[in-house]
């Protein structure tokens, strides 16, 4: 049972319930309803396909935030034969909203970093809703420096509603921590593969988001500010987030078209939260293919190409 049914998913849920009831009826009363059930199953498949292939940007933002969507640790669990987590930035604290560690994916030994959200209130308090303090960025950097030293590629999973806006975060240099990571990631002498798996809000996402390839899952969003934040500034009304999402062009498809994403991975039957295992399998094969390619590039060339890639981003006119 889903934790949350979005408005546009309701017809699917209703149909699913109807099919369940018929199955139950058939089982209990011994009535043969195979044909009817099969018809409804076909109808359901069509409805699912139609629903998830016709989403507007705001609906995709809602899917990116869906509480049943796999998070970083879920993907690690589904993809890796081994994961050893490390903790702390060696300066101040361990930030639980960013995880870091060493994983084995098939033949690759990789350093993994990623935002981590919680699934319920208790977990979210522990994970600070996936919103990092400076310590999270510094822990991630420490892991990346280890990757560089021992010649292991880095995979970074992006899923945050933003870096935490608080007094302690500012006191301990949120801006410096993010800036430092952008600087160091752009010249790290080992491959960095970015996977946007949910939300990508602003500098809080980019702070572990600079790399050689940027893979985006279909129902994700990534922008300079959240749609709510943009709406509350430009329209003085956070409720107009749907308009802001359209205006800012925040979806994976937009990112791909704007040259910010290198590869778009479609979600099985249109949604990761309904198909977590199949999604992880698809993402894993994209990760493995990219790792094979990136690991064949010498470090000097890799860094040169990475800086060149970011040099091209943006759009302007000149006389």
């Amino acid at each position, binding site marked *: 049972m889903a934790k949350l049914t979005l408005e546009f998913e309701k017809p699917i849920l209703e149909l699913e319930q109807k099919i369940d009831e018929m199955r139950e009826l058939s089982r209990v009363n011994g009535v043969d309803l195979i044909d009817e059930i099969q018809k409804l199953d076909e109808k359901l498949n069509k409805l699912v396909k139609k629903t998830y292939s016709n989403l507007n940007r705001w609906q995709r933002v809602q899917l990116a935030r869906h509480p049943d969507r796999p998070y970083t640790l879920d993907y690690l669990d589904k993809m890796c034969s081994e994961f050893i987590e490390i903790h702390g930035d060696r300066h101040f604290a361990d930030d639980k909203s960013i995880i870091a560690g060493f994983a084995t994916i098939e033949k690759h030994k990789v350093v993994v970093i990623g935002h981590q959200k919680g699934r319920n209130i208790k977990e979210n308090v522990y994970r600070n809703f996936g919103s990092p303090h400076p310590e999270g960025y510094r822990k991630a950097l420490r892991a990346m420096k280890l990757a560089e030293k021992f010649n292991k590629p880095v995979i970074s999973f992006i899923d945050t509603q933003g870096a935490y806006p608080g007094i302690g975060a500012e*006191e301990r*240099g949120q*801006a410096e921590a993010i800036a430092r990571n952008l600087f160091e990631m752009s*010249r790290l002498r080992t491959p960095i593969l970015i996977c946007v798996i949910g939300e990508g809000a602003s500098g809080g996402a980019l702070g572990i988001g600079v790399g050689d390839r940027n893979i985006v899952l279909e129902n994700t969003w990534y922008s*300079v500010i959240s749609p709510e934040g943009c709406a509350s500034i430009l329209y003085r009304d956070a409720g107009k987030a749907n308009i802001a999402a359209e205006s800012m062009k925040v979806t994976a498809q937009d990112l791909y078209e704007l040259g910010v994403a290198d590869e778009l991975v479609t979600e099985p039957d249109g949604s990761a939260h309904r198909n977590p295992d199949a999604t992880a399998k698809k993402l894993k094969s994209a990760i493995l293919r990219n790792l094979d390619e990136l690991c064949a590039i010498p470090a000097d060339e890799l860094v040169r190409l990475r800086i060149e890639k970011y040099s091209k981003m943006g759009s*302007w006119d000149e006389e």
Partner: protein
Amino acid sequence: MVDWFRRTKTGLLSTEKKVIPDGLWIKCPKCSEYLYKRELERNFWICTQCQYHFRISSSNYFTILIDGDYEEFNQKMKSNDPLKFKDSKRYSDRVKEAHAKTGLYDAVVTVEGDIDKHRVVLCVMDFNFVGGSMGSVVGEKISRAIDRAREKKLPLIIVSSSGGARMQEGVLSLMQMAKTSAKLAQFHGEGGFFISILTDPTTGGTTASFAMLGDIIIAEPGALIGFAGERVIKQTIGKDLPEGFQRAEFLLEKGFVDMIIGRSEIKKTIIKLLDFFNDKN
């Protein structure tokens, strides 16, 4: 991220009012004293009564730092509104209005000029142009300035005054943070010397990229410097913020800037730093 717009709503000083108005007499926004404009100009736009540093235009900053003439490059690079963004106004109209108001094409001016005996590349952001926000043009101009400094082996100075990344260019604005930081990493790798000067205000994506990456970071007295906007922090934590929070003096205390230097002394300080570090010849 761009919190310059929000600030006007919170009852704090409106940015519009803080920009230097025309006329002979100007009221200091901090101590409310009326100051004679010519005298204020001679005093580096610092209030003679309370030392408040007025927000000044990029051209004023060139006068303060550079000896004589300077050569501007990439002057006419301008936004082409990649998202065709529109809120109450079209973004393209917003840019046109900002151009009409300031004569600038975007929120940073990049030049090459002399400071004492040192040839330098200098970038000055201008808060009067869409809140000094960083979109593609700002990112690209700063990136090219960094490249020029690297290729010509010149020191780099960036004077920041910015509300953060520019919302109207969405994720492309965000990527300018990565781009400028990547260029600085390359510059750093080739031994380049970079002084970052933070003026009021330096916030959001500007702070979280090149502004915090100086070999030396200098802040102007009282400048607002931070990542998250005041209103967002207040909303999140549900408390008032301590006095002096996110001001230059707070950052010095917390260890994030090297020094606070008043505008009247800043050129002298920069010359000393250049004499020390830029002595390759």
